[in-house]
């Protein structure tokens, strides 16, 4: 594909099924995401949200249509995407610091520089950990951390190599409300310091409204985008904003969309 467009991630009439004969996991889907845009995807369970992330990151090929990232057709794993899931998946034999440094042992050119410039990289990881409130926990093992702390570390691991594209699949889904909202702010701060393109999958409509620039609502399986809602709220957003009328209106509007797709 040579047609140059200004969007960073683009899906053109993408459909996807896991194996032949299966029902579609994703139906004719079109998306245009700008560089540095924060996108949230909401929809009923099983509608293909995680599948969408796999498509964009190149972990799964589309059955039909084209996925473009940075104007290049995606034909295999993108090699530089940051990812975090509901399950923090930290490696139990590594300290928090070493877990965060894992991408540096894999991503080029860092993997070739890491040994010589270890101190520099450790410094970077420590700074990142401090920015999510994990200062002083660098040498602890994941099983010595609380669930929220593990999720912070997992977030650091997904960002340490400064990816242009971050995929988040319900990263805060397993956390209590206070920790979750604290992490919204942390994520927003990180993103405002260095705007990367984010696709956040979530079940939480308040989370989507708090964090995203654009919110996509998907229909139930076979998933299809039925609404793309611009978020009018100014940045930076803080907890106060969640009590304002525009915020609650937005959440209500999204909720009614979800109710409609579930009823359909």
């Amino acid at each position, binding site marked *: 594909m040579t047609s140059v467009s200004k969007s960073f991630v683009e899906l053109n009439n993408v459909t996807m099924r896991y194996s032949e004969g299966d029902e579609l996991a994703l139906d004719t889907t079109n998306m245009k995401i700008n560089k540095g845009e924060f996108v949230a995807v909401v929809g009923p369970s099983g509608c293909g949200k995680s599948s969408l992330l796999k498509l964009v990151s190149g*972990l799964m090929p589309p059955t039909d249509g084209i996925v473009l990232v940075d104007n290049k057709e995606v034909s295999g794993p993108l090699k*530089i995407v940051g*990812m975090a899931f509901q399950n923090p*998946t930290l*490696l139990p034999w590594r300290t928090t610091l070493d877990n965060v440094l894992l991408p540096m042992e*894999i*991503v080029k050119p860092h993997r070739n520089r890491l040994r010589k410039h270890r101190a520099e990289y450790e410094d970077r990881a420590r700074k990142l950990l401090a920015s999510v409130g994990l200062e002083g926990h660098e040498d602890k093992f994941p099983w010595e951390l609380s669930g929220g702390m593990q999720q912070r570390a997992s977030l650091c691991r997904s960002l340490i190599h400064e990816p242009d594209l971050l995929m988040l699949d319900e990263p805060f889904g397993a956390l209590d409300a206070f920790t979750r909202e604290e992490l919204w702010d942390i994520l927003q701060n990180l993103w405002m310091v260095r705007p990367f393109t984010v696709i956040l999958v979530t079940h939480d409509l308040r989370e989507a409204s708090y964090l995203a620039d654009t919110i996509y609502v998907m229909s139930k399986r076979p998933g299809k985008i039925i609404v793309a809602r611009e978020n009018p709220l100014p940045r930076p957003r803080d907890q106060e904003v969640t009590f304002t009328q525009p915020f609650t209106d937005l959440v209500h509007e999204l909720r009614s969309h979800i109710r409609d797709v579930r009823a359909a």
Partner: protein
Amino acid sequence: MNKKLNLRKASPWLSAISLFVLWELIVRIFNIPPYVLPTPSESVIVGWQFHEAIWMHATHTLYTTLVGFAIAVVFGVVLGALVGSSRTIYDAANPLLVGFNSVPKVALVPVLVMWFGIGTVPAIITAFMISFFPIVVNVATGLATLEPELRDVLRSLGATRKDILIKVGFPRAMPYFFASLKVAITLAFVGSVISETVASNVGVGYLMLSASSKFNMPLVFAGLLVIAVMGIAMYEIFNVIERRSTKWANRANPTN
């Protein structure tokens, strides 16, 4: 608290001593003749009388066991790594492995004797054959249990299969590997004693066979005790190694 801990520490000794006391009592009460079942005290006394011979035979058994076990570790790790890291190799090797594991190894000893003569070599090979299987299975299992989400994280960073194997596969397989060593070392003992019993002129197995042909039952049981003690010692050594080397696996509770 402290009392409980002491009791836990003492319990294996208490159970062993109770077993021997019970055994001693039963033999004495029912007046069982020593050529059927000797008392433990008798076995220990006879064992002491023959301690030089027993020592010689036992060290030989230990030697064949350890050599066979060492080969099994190397072979088991290599094969387990291959089987665990490739679906194709797994499919190809699995029926062969299961089939081979189902063959009673004692049936192969005569074949080995035909090839290598009686003595040390068949014992080593039998110890090896009987003990590599759990190592292969455990290493392969450890390598193959990779959370799909973690795999996605790594692949989207551009990790090759080799990267994933080195960064996640092998460390994760370590507890499985060490757990299999405990089992494998005891099996290796079984293997070399079986082979010595069938075809050797040295080793604890041979000692017991020749003692029983002379109706020296106390010596046979002394041999059995020696094997049991060596087995327990080996098991404990690898148990300690396991606990030391993979502390994270005992503390953490991985969800997979």
